[in-house]
């Protein structure tokens, strides 16, 4: 029994190369110098990632689209403030996380509608590392995904953000510490606390999950 396989950023975003962080920093420097083409490239590279992170954090696709636009405007207009020695990916995600937290703070707590596929169509991969999935496996996996989505939506906002940064976005401890502005030790304890909350909610969905998810 070992640790679960964690997808690396390279796996999750094929457009990134091994030197992604450095390349991103160079993009930001070029944007700061007024290179509109660099901004388009950076947008192409990060728009899906930022948009989906926002969606997972606030659970509202249309609002996530609006927020993502605001995030990229900030990235464009604040590129001059980026420290080239810093982590560009963490810098971008910090802007997105702050935008989501601002939005969640201003808005009244939304009663989460657990309509799993309210957003656009999702491309599903009906296969695993061991080959094509059988129909029961596909159903079980889809069921689990629905429950995960519901459980994440029911978590406290801050815990949800921490969990998503680690297990959805795949950030390192150092990057999460930079995004949240805290020490690495604090990050570790917050991650375990968030996972515990997720686990409790997720286990509670085990019985009658289908009914809740279809609600």
């Amino acid at each position, binding site marked *: *029994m*070992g*640790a*679960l*396989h*964690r*997808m690396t950023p390279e796996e*999750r975003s094929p457009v990134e190369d091994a030197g992604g962080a450095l390349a991103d920093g160079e993009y930001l420097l070029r944007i700061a110098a*007024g290179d509109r083409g660099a901004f*388009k490239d950076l*947008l*192409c590279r990060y*728009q*899906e*990632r930022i*948009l*989906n992170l926002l*969606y*997972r954090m606030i659970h509202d*696709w249309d609002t996530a*689209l609006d927020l*993502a*636009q605001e995030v*990229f*405007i900030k990235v*464009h*207009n*604040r*590129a*001059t*403030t980026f420290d080239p020695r810093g982590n560009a990916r963490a810098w971008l995600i910090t802007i997105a996380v702050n935008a989501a937290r601002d939005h969640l703070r201003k808005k009244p707590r939304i009663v989460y509608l657990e309509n799993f596929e309210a*957003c*656009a*169509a*999702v*491309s*599903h991969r009906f296969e695993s590392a061991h080959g094509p999935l059988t129909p029961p496996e596909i159903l079980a*996996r889809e069921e*689990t*995904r629905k*429950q*995960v*989505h519901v*459980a*994440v939506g029911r978590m406290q906002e801050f815990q949800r953000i921490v*969990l998503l940064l680690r*297990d*959805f976005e*795949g950030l390192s401890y150092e990057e999460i510490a930079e995004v949240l502005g805290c020490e690495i030790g604090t990050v*570790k304890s917050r*991650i*375990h606390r968030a*996972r*515990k909350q*997720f*686990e409790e909610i*997720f*286990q509670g969905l*085990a019985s009658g999950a289908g009914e809740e998810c279809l609600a």
Partner: protein
Amino acid sequence: MKCDQAREWFSHLIEGDLPAAERTQVAEHIDRCPACGERYRRFERGIQSLRELPRHPVPRSFASDLLARPELNDGRQAALARAGDAVLPRPRSWKAVAGSAAALLAVAAGVAVYLEWRVSGVGGQRELLARIEAEHAANVRAVEELRSRHSAEDEDGSAQQERLLAAAAEENGRLARELQAQGEILRNLEAALRAVEAEGRLARNESGGAGGELTALRSELAELASTLRREAGEEAKTQRGNLERLAERVGELAAAGAATPGDARARTALAESGADEEQEPVLLLRENNRPVLRPDWTHSGAAPYLFRLYESRDPEWSPLAFQALDQHFRLRAQGFVAARVQRERKGERQGPIGGILGNRAEPAQAEDEESRLVQYYKEFWVEEQRGVQRASPGPKQAP
């Protein structure tokens, strides 16, 4: 290990950061306890599923909508403007630029004169040295004046101005040191020359007809002295020309604009009094923040300028203009003024004018006296100009 305790470690088990002993304990509990085992496997699937949650595609219009938003450009321009304010120097005024250039050119001209002097002979150089030292002092004053002007007009002057001024001051300092050293050399050479001449006299007196050697020495000495005198005379002539050209050049620089030592307030006063700016001679200087006239103001073209400057009633420059006019015309126009005063006395115009020709009037009458005296000087000058126009040999004296 109890179930609650084991479940506390689930996250660490997934993270893989448990020490070996704890990991073994938790694993054994999960194997023995079906509920905890099922619970852990479900949690593990949940976390794995979270990591594999699909990413929804971005609508095609997302990027185009974003790139069309006006904030994308306005905000960045504002940010750039803020950044620019912080790092870019403010535009320098042309006055400051011209001032720095004038200071450097004046210093350069001084250095050029000095270099020419340095290669010249010994004789007759003392006068030249004094003139160069005076020129150097004028340069120092010009630099100081420019520095004070810059600090007043452009207190946050750019680093480049500071560097220019510092360079000018440093160059002047170097020039001063060089002049001092050359003065010392000159004095040593003169002392050596005197010693050689004394030796020659002594030898002539003591040895009488001591032979051809002494005669040859005397001849050589005479030839040397003659050469030195000739070279010194030619060099002095050359240096005088250089100094005149330098003075002319400084005058041109001064006339080039507000970077010159002219005073803006006096210029304004003159402009308001209708003075012809094209004929305006460069007369105004500030020395230690006090108004002074250039030493070479006493040329014929300066008179109308001084009259207008006096009539401007500027509290600072008008008295100075009066002093200059009085100095310039007092002797030349003495007869003319006396005749005018006498004529007025005959017309029973007794009054403050009585103090003009020597006996000073009361302070309350001084201003009126000055004004009338300047009027007489003006009339004298007009007559003088008419005489010049008629190509008469000299200024025409009033009857």
